[in-house]
């Protein structure tokens, strides 16, 4: 089962505001691209040779925030009440 199919089973209150900003220009110059391996929801993928980020499936664990050493990621929590809403946890 693909991660995106797993995430489709989760309950999210998707916010219209993006809570994580990724400076993809910095990513272009980044060799290790830690974000690709840090994110358990595979929110970071390589598309046409560039790191592309989508926030909708974010599980808010913070792994990318502690993994990027290039300062490309600006992290805030989603607005109160938005984002992942675990039903089991």
């Amino acid at each position, binding site marked *: 089962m693909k991660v995106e199919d797993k995430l489709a*089973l989760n309950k999210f209150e998707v916010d219209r505001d993006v809570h994580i900003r990724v400076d993809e220009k910095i990513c272009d110059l980044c060799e290790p691209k830690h974000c690709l391996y*840090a994110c358990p929801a595979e929110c970071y993928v390589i598309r046409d040779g560039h790191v592309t980020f989508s926030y909708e499936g974010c599980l*808010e664990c913070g792994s990318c925030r502690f*993994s990027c050493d290039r300062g490309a990621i600006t992290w805030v929590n989603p607005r109160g*009440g938005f984002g992942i*809403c*675990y*039903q089991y*946890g």
Partner: protein
Amino acid sequence: MERFDAIVVGAGPAGCAAAYTMAKAGLNILVLERGKYAGAKNMWGGALFGSAMNEVFPEFWKEAPVERSVSRHAISFLTKDASLSIDYKNAHRDSSSCPGFIILRAKFDQWMAGKVEKAGAIIASGLEVDDFIREGQAIRGVKVGGEEFPANLVILADGANSLLASKAGLRGEFKAEDLKQGVKEVLRLPREVIENRFNLQGTEGAVMEFVGHCTLGLPGGGFIYTNLDSLSVGVVVQLSALLEKRVKASDLIEEFKAHPVVQNLIRGGELLEYSAHLIPVSGVSMMPRLFADGIMITGDAAAMVLGTGLILEGANFAVAAGVAAGNAAIRAREKNDYSSIALQSYEQALKDTFVIKDLNTFREAPHFLENERIYNAYPQWACDMMSRIFCSDGKPRKNTFQVVRESMKGRFTVMQLLSDFMRARRAM
């Protein structure tokens, strides 16, 4: 806006324990939870061990939504196709002692928050704290959106991924070396199937831990917890190791589930939820300053987690630490002094509890557990040894101790084994 005696940020075990302690003493308490409800952002393996929760909410399991009580605890070493297990089961549990409970957080945390509310605190969910109100160096409340909530004290209990801890100047950011990433699937399975498959009676539950091939040899492990009618299945891996080895935990959990031993245990399970969380694992060495003028920090946000390989405790520590913070707040209010000098009593009290004592006893454990032989060479050795001992291939048998020695060849030296043993003695 009304001025609160204390504002607690985060309605998890630490925040709820602190808020409940203070509310019961008559303090005017506001709990701010960023999730839509308490527990919305929380996941764990999950079992709760220890007595702290029982001290705050006596015999909580009689009313709280717990899945099962832990009667079986197994640890298995895995290679690609084999496993060797230590399987502990106690059917005659002493009823006076507090057993472990397998719990799903979304339901349980809501129950805790309900208790806190009944004790007189206000729980406001769906509110994300952006910043603090400051008077000089002192923190005097929080800001939510454009709104200010003044308070004499703030207690931070906002979890491993706390954004406020560094804003308050209590700590720098955690490092990937000091964190483990847990990913988990909740798989629905009929009750009878779980009870038959895991050899359980009624609401008995099993905690199964796995070391070795499930993380492809990276520091960490796999786990299965039996809920009432579902299984919690997942892996926990050192975050820095994922980055270094360019491996994703989302792939490791698939690898784990596909292991022949694990596959048989979870067969037929239907996925209900996929979750992930960070665990601060470096113990005392990563602990922040615990207080400053007008603020205290507790639980995962303060890295109060114990992992020794055999023992894994976070929530139990969080509850005990939350109570200690709550009591410090009560004393501060009696003296009407919320300065860092007055809040020293929080750290003093913590030092007298098992929280700091255990973290000190096992202070070498985090470093010891980085040793990759634990996840590669030793599980392979253990399984290979057993397979050779049990093998009957028509050839004359060798002395068992000779088999043990031969299985070590190419994996590690006697010196390495002895030195790891000595380190284990100190660490565990």
